[in-house]
């Protein structure tokens, strides 16, 4: 049977395309702002949130949604107050929420299967309800990115001047990080908490090498993201490997290839 004959695979591929496009596009801001580490921090926070939700017996989605949002605004707030360095705050949150997640999950009987899925992605886990949620989250992220296009650009390029121009810089940075958090939640099922950050960084970093223009960068990064997630899913289907690592390895290889080709041509 071909891979499209499986309903779970159809769902995974649609979800994968949505994830690739969303993470690719929002990842441009993550990369340009030097937020790569923050992306990883938010992803691990999502894992902690999932564990809390599972333990409380509520839908893991709510935990995965609420926890990273709190963390995102926490980061935005901390970085503006600068009481401690941003990466120190993220470094602590990163490890603590990961530890919390695994600590809490160990109280749930038979947690190991779930654990592996949430950490490394499980294409079998994409339900039709997950697919619906994916559409809603991706729609939200893209709507915000379209409406606030010029604000996000300004705040990312030159926050100091954006503030002088009267833009609410703190709020916009918080919203941007929230969109990163939503993207992480969206990607959690397919890629897993450990590797989500790679999706935020690699497509944008790959596109950055070949594109000279900001909105082309957004477009290319989204397209590369789609190609990598869908391609990775197909490979993982045939090789029977976990989807997350397969996608990330494919992405990293493409990044390396582009880098080598670009060095050659230069």
């Amino acid at each position, binding site marked *: 049977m071909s891979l499209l004959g499986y309903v779970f695979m159809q769902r995974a591929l649609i979800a994968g395309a949505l994830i690739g496009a969303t993470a690719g596009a929002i990842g441009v801001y993550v990369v*340009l702002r030097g937020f790569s580490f923050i992306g990883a921090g938010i992803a691990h926070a999502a894992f902690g949130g999932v564990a809390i939700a599972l333990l409380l017996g509520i839908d893991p989605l709510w935990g995965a949604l609420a926890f990273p949002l709190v963390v995102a605004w926490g980061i935005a707030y901390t970085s503006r107050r600068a009481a401690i360095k941003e990466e120190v705050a993220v470094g602590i949150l990163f490890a603590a929420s990961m530890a919390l997640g695994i600590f809490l999950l160990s109280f749930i009987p038979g947690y190991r299967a779930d654990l592996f899925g949430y950490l490394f992605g499980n294409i079998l886990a994409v339900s039709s309800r997950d697919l619906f949620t994916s559409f809603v989250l991706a729609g939200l992220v893209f709507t915000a990115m379209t*409406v*606030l*296009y*010029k*604000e996000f*650009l*300004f705040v990312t*390029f*030159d926050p*100091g*001047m*954006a*503030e*002088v*121009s*009267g*833009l609410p810089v703190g709020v916009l940075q918080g919203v941007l990080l929230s969109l990163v958090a939503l993207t992480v939640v969206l990607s959690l099922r397919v890629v897993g908490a450990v590797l989500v950050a790679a999706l935020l960084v690699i497509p944008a970093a790959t596109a*950055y090498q070949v*594109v*000279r*223009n*900001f909105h082309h*960068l957004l477009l290319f990064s989204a397209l590369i993201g789609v190609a990598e997630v869908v391609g990775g899913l197909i490979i993982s289907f045939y090789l029977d490997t976990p989807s997350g690592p397969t996608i990330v390895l494919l992405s990293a290889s493409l990044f390396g290839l582009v880098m080598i080709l670009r060095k050659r041509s230069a």
Partner: protein
Amino acid sequence: MRPVVELEDVWVELGGHTVLEAITMRVGEGEFVSVVGPNGAGKTTLLKVILGLVVPQRGEVRVFGRPPRDLGRDRARIGYVPQVEEVDLRFPLRVFDVVLMGRYGTLGLGRRPRGEDRRAALEALELVGIRDLAGKLIGELSGGQRQRAFVARALAAKPKLLLLDEPTTGVDPAASESFYELLRKIQETGVTVLMVTHDVGVVSRYVDKVACINRRLVVHGRPEEVVTSEALAEMYGCAALFFHHGRIPHMVVRPHADFRKEGT
């Protein structure tokens, strides 16, 4: 002359240190004023006070006759050129896109730039003399060209007051001089120009007034009064050596100890 900027007994404290102390000064409409002083003298803070980004503990600030925080839409009448280092130059943005950002503050949340905004951006590029570089990436420009691009961004919103923070840092002397010429040209279009700099000497030939700041306002007056006064020596806390070169004396500033050792 109507005052554009008025400071009255302004005191600013940041992190437990007094940064500005009892500053009282006025900048009249259409004037070109340079603010000079040593590192850490509070020059940048002074600009931030005028922009409303720093609120003084004591004293009154008025820009266009109103407190800077109450300017609302008139905030766009202040153009600001910050120190360049704050921007990531690897950002994939064309010079034109950067200049267009100068219009963002006047556009309102969620609004896209329109034809008139693009025209204003091109006019600003024309005025600073780098219209031909509009399609280059911001990171591809030389220091002097980039500085002009940031001035164009500030001018794109058609401000009546232009504030510049150390605009000639890392720019070679010849390029600095032509940059000051540009500021004169901008001044002639009716814009009030206030520039923070550590370049005490050369700039005196271009400006109407010099304000020396070292936490306090040491002196504020016409360049020839200021440069020849004892104030500079006091301000830098070191020996100031003047040599005459044209109409305005130039100055060489050296640490006191070195000055003694060399016996000049």
